[in-house]
């Protein structure tokens, strides 16, 4: 009995070992080391002329849905009308899947010629490191792209070769528009409090208004933060007011020696903390989904809401002028305009593209004054210099347009803090959620976030 058992066990073990060996062999045959090294496409002479004598098909992949997606489709159609021999095939992927796939898509042999690639380390960094997207400095110089944008604005699309830091180095894309964070206010409620939006000239006046709202039985700041990222915009917009802008940007870019452990950041975090403890921020924020928070603001719950221009279209459509948009006021009245904001996710050119000239020509078309009305109609916030789009009087859009112009003229974009490292989103957002829940101090938040930064930059 035991003998049989033993023999059977031995046989079974032997078979298992054999299987394991087979598996190991198969795997080993695949790849001893994951990944591949792509040689840089040798940058040959470039041309800004689109050849008209041959049929050219380009592919473009992006994650613009709804109105902005329609705008891209229209631009493709218009460009094809200008160049009948060129066909641009658009491959749309929903944003939720896009980030997961983009590395695989761009490293495949049939990589799209043009791809929308988010700034910083989650998308652009790995693609730069893998040499899968092409530096565009030559085209930018030939077309004069830098003259079209506000000072310093294109820096956020630059990456160093080692992909450790960005904000300087080679240019890897161009963006069709911008986005920024600011304050939506309920006009009627503000009026009832006896406050003119123009009179809120600094953060002290803003905090006073919050106190007034609270005293009047209103919810001062509406916020849905279940997803953890929304409150981060509130904090970083405060940091943009209290801290030195260059220091913030250097930190986001990953420049050596940058640190978040500075008085301005501490003051911003402490301010947010005091707003929370005074009941100025929706107490159920951490348990309310972002969209549900927006819906509540639209229904009239909340005097203010601090978030990005991406909900402006919905606000204007559903509140019909009952809400306006302004920048978060500076710490000291009259200081230059600062805001959390950036260019939209840029379009980059694959280093495998056989037609970089045509790809660059299309990108150039997308960021031209000619394309601007289409983009604006699609809901984009125009980013080009000298852009003259106007919004209907009394809309929130008026405020977002004016805000963008003010901030870019002052070179005051504070960028997004979760860009700083690949894991910064997960680290920072949950820390802000803890701060809101009274589970983290300003100092503790700064330490945890800076630790993440140090770990990444020390690698």
């Amino acid at each position: 009995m035991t003998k049989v058992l033993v023999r059977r066990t031995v046989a079974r073990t032997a078979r298992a070992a054999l299987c394991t060996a087979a598996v190991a062999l198969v795997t080993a045959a695949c790849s001893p080391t994951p990944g591949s090294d792509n040689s840089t496409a040798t940058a040959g002479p470039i041309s800004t002329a689109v050849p008209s004598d041959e049929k050219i098909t380009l592919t473009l992949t992006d994650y613009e849905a709804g109105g902005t997606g329609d705008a891209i489709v229209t631009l493709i159609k218009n460009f094809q009308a200008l160049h009948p021999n060129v066909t641009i095939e658009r491959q749309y992927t929903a944003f939720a899947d896009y980030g997961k796939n983009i590395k695989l898509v761009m490293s495949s042999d049939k990589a799209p010629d043009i791809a929308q690639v988010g700034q910083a380390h989650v998308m652009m960094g790995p693609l730069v490191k893998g040499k899968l997207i092409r530096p565009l400095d030559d085209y930018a110089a030939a077309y004069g792209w830098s003259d079209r944008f506000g000072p310093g604005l294109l820096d956020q699309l630059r990456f160093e070769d080692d992909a450790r830091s960005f904000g300087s180095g080679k240019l890897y894309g161009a963006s069709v528009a911008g986005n920024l964070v600011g304050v939506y206010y309920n006009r009627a409620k503000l009026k009832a409090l006896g406050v003119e939006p123009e009179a809120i000239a600094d953060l002290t006046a803003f905090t006073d208004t919050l106190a007034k709202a609270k005293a009047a039985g209103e919810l001062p700041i509406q916020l849905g933060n279940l997803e953890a990222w929304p409150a981060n915009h509130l904090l970083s917009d405060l940091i943009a007011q209290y801290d030195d802008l260059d220091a913030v940007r250097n930190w986001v870019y990953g420049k050596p020696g940058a640190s978040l452990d500075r008085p301005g950041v501490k003051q911003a975090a402490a301010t947010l903390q005091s707003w929370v403890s005074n009941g100025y921020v929706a107490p159920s924020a951490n348990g309310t989904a972002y969209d549900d928070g927006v819906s509540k603001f639209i229904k009239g719950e909340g005097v203010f809401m601090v978030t990005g221009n991406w909900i402006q279209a919905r606000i204007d459509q559903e509140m019909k002028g009952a809400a306006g948009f302004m920048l978060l006021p500076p710490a000291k009245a009259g200081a230059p305009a600062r805001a959390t904001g950036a260019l939209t996710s840029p379009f980059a050119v694959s280093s495998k593209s056989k037609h970089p000239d045509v790809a660059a020509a299309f990108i150039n078309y997308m960021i031209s004054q000619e394309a601007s009305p289409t983009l604006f109609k699609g809901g984009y916030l125009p980013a080009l210099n000298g852009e003259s789009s106007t919004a209907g009087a009394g809309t929130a859009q008026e405020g977002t347009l004016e805000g963008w112009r003010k901030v870019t003229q002052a070179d005051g974009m504070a960028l997004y803090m979760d860009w700083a490292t690949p894991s910064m989103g997960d680290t920072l957002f949950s820390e802000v959620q803890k701060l809101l829940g009274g589970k983290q101090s300003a100092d503790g938040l700064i330490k945890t976030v800076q630790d993440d930064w140090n770990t990444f930059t020390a690698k």
Partner: protein
Amino acid sequence: MRRRQRIAYLYLLPGFLVYLAFVLVPLAHTVELSFFEWDGISVGRWVGLDNYRRLLGDSTILSSFAHAGVFLVFTSVVPVMLGLVLAAALSRHRLRGLAVFRTVLFLPQVIAMVVVGVAWRWMYTDDGVVNQLLHAIGLGSVTRAWLGDFTWALPAVGLVGTWVMYGLCMVLFLAGVQKIDTSLYEVARIDGAGPIREFRHVTLPGLRQEIAVALTITTIAALRNFDLVYVTTNGGPGNATNVPAVEIYRLGFREGDVGLACAVAVVLTLLIFAVVFAITRLAREER
């Protein structure tokens, strides 16, 4: 005998090849990747056991395993117990409309997890159904936005797991009860056993196999839980509901830390194996 056995293996070959290609090879590949530092694109770097060392030193990852343990209670232990109670109650009396009860209680299993998650997310909001009910029964003081509460978010999501799983357990047990010889119940009753003794000495032993199956299914579901957490809280607030599967997703797809993500996956797989192995061993004992 030998010849026949060899032919038998030949029959298994097609199935095994598919299994090899889609389960074993990816599994081995995951183990292999866990020894590399790799961002998903550029050439990886062999780092030996470094990822496992990082895993053990990372409080966020370790806490995610602790949360998985809590889910194990809510999604496996509690549903199995509830299922047993329900099965015992429903099997003892011939109820009219038993099929209706069974269907209704089983319903959570039919709904896609994402839908379940979204529905419960709404019910847990500060003005949601849960708080309305609490207000209605005079417990207005305990209402809160449940998923945003650092203490209550994990039990709140866990309870959804209970809700999804208990119906499945109950149906399994009801089927099992029907297979128990009714004469055993008769004997027990003649000997004067009450419902509790009858349950302990007839129903429970008779359901040993079903309990093992239910525990196995629910344990795996609990430990690999991704969609429910992802949809309801995405690991928040803070990291209060973070679980290994969400952490793997974050590390692998968002943070570009494929090696560490694979290491977490390997540990999670081993953990599931260990727990399931223990369950099957327990079920086999005393036979």
